[in-house]
């Protein structure tokens, strides 16, 4: 059974069909790309999958469990985490606290424990701290852990967003244009980080990207969206050479 099963998903804004009849099956451990020209509905798909928008039609399941109509918070707890196209870190909190917000659902101590500093508090706080530092190390951010998030350079903010999303312990990670605004070197580094996350966290990743080098370099399969509908789907190398896809991007 596929980890993510999306069937005929669609949403209308007034008369506009922003996404129409979107279906995809993503196997566990896959790196899956979602591409298409600007305004094709890619981020809308992410907003549907994370519960920000309620779908007008269709269903989606994670690990067989129906997620339609669930709240963003519930969907996150059931295993879908995301990053944002325009970075949305908690910018006035420290780098490590950003990650800890992601971890917080996995803590069990009570307000009482927290305010009166019971042994349980110290034990859990310590393990949470270790876990957060471990995550930051993966992204080479451990030296920045006490800095405020908004003081980080752009590339590191993007990485911190991925770290924060991973902290919620998802089964499926959605990356919205992770390479946006990065130079070729940074993109290269990001590609190896994404691979590392997939291999070491046993993660399934669905990503939106405009940088075809990144998509061609790491995604095994892709779906191309155009005007809210699926234009092509399949193995990355085949889809990227499909004349219809090239036309959609470059025009006749």
């Amino acid at each position, binding site marked *: 059974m596929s980890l993510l099963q999306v069937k005929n998903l669609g949403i209308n804004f007034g008369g506009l069909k922003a996404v129409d009849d979107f279906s995809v099956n993503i196997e566990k451990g896959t790196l899956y790309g979602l591409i298409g020209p600007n305004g094709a509905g890619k981020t809308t798909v992410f907003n549907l999958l994370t519960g920000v928008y309620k779908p007008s039609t269709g269903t989606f399941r994670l690990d067989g469990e129906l997620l339609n109509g669930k*709240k*963003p*918070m519930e969907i996150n707890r059931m295993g879908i985490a995301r990053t944002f196209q325009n970075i949305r*870190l*908690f910018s006035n909190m420290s780098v490590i606290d950003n990650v800890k*917000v*992601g971890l917080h659902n996995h803590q069990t101590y009570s307000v009482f*424990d*927290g305010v009166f500093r019971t042994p349980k508090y110290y034990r859990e706080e310590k393990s949470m701290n270790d876990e957060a530092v471990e995550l930051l190390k993966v992204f080479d951010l451990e030296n920045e852990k006490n800095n405020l998030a908004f003081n980080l350079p752009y590339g590191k903010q993007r990485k911190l967003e991925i770290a924060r999303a991973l*902290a919620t312990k998802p089964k499926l990670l959605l990356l919205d244009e992770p390479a946006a605004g990065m130079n070729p070197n940074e993109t290269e580094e990001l590609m190896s980080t994404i691979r590392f996350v997939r291999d070491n966290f046993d993660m399934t990743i669905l990503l939106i990207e405009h940088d075809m080098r990144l998509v061609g370099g790491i995604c095994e399969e892709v779906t191309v969206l155009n005007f809210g509908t699926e234009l092509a789907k399949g193995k990355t190398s085949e889809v990227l050479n499909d004349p219809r896809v090239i036309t959609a991007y470059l025009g006749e």
Partner: protein
Amino acid sequence: MQQFCEQLLNGLNLGSVYALIALGYTMVYGIAKMLNFAHGDIIMVGAYTLLLSSTRFGLPWYLAVLLCAVVCCVLGVSIEKIAYKPLRNASPLTVLITAIGVSYFLQSSALLIFGSNKQKVDSLIKIKGFTVNGINVSGESIVTLSVTIVIMILLTLFIKKTKMGKAMLAVSEDKGAAQLMGVNVNATISLTFAIGSALAAVAGILYMSSYGFVGPYTGSLPGIKAFVAAVLGGIGSIPGAMLGGILLGIIESMAKTYISTDLADAIVFGILIVVLLFRPTGLLGKKRIEKV
């Protein structure tokens, strides 16, 4: 000198009450981005609860305090659920008008139930004061100051050191992103209203111990002044609310003694205007630098 010290103490006493109320304003503003103008009236409800439970029915002080806190918590959370939550995505002006409406609703309800006459509330504080170098330190001052200090320490620990505190900070930064990171935004907002209202209850009890009379409009002036304190300290900032409240109390008390009782309020609000002219974000407010 003796007079100065006593007035300083009075100012600290009054300022503590303002600070406790201002904390509620500032926390709710930080999280829900709204000015809860009904917050002052929560104090009045707390004071009436004290009147009924302690003065009328003679409950022991700890039960009376507990009851006040519970009544105010329930009231604060219900107001949020009934009046503000449906307006989560409405314009700030709509929410502001609603808050003012809730404030009038609470005042009018109190007027209907208790009538317009002010009623005497017995002080809960029975501790005797003492005199050092001719300076009178009243029992009320001792209790008010120590209670406020303890509450501020606990609140700071709560926000800095617990996961709910972190969730609050995260919600205040970006509600949408927090939700997508699995933070329960509605529960966090309710918790904020509950804490703010419990603080208002404590403030109401302390206020009653010094002033002793409760009427339907008892909450409005301390409410407005605490709002000024929150803005003075930098609205949204918790240390700012504490500092703003204490400063405001001292200024008011000094102005009453050395300048004029009639002008004291004018001076308090005048200072607000001056501070905002030079530091629009308040004393400890965050400066938002937009990155381009």
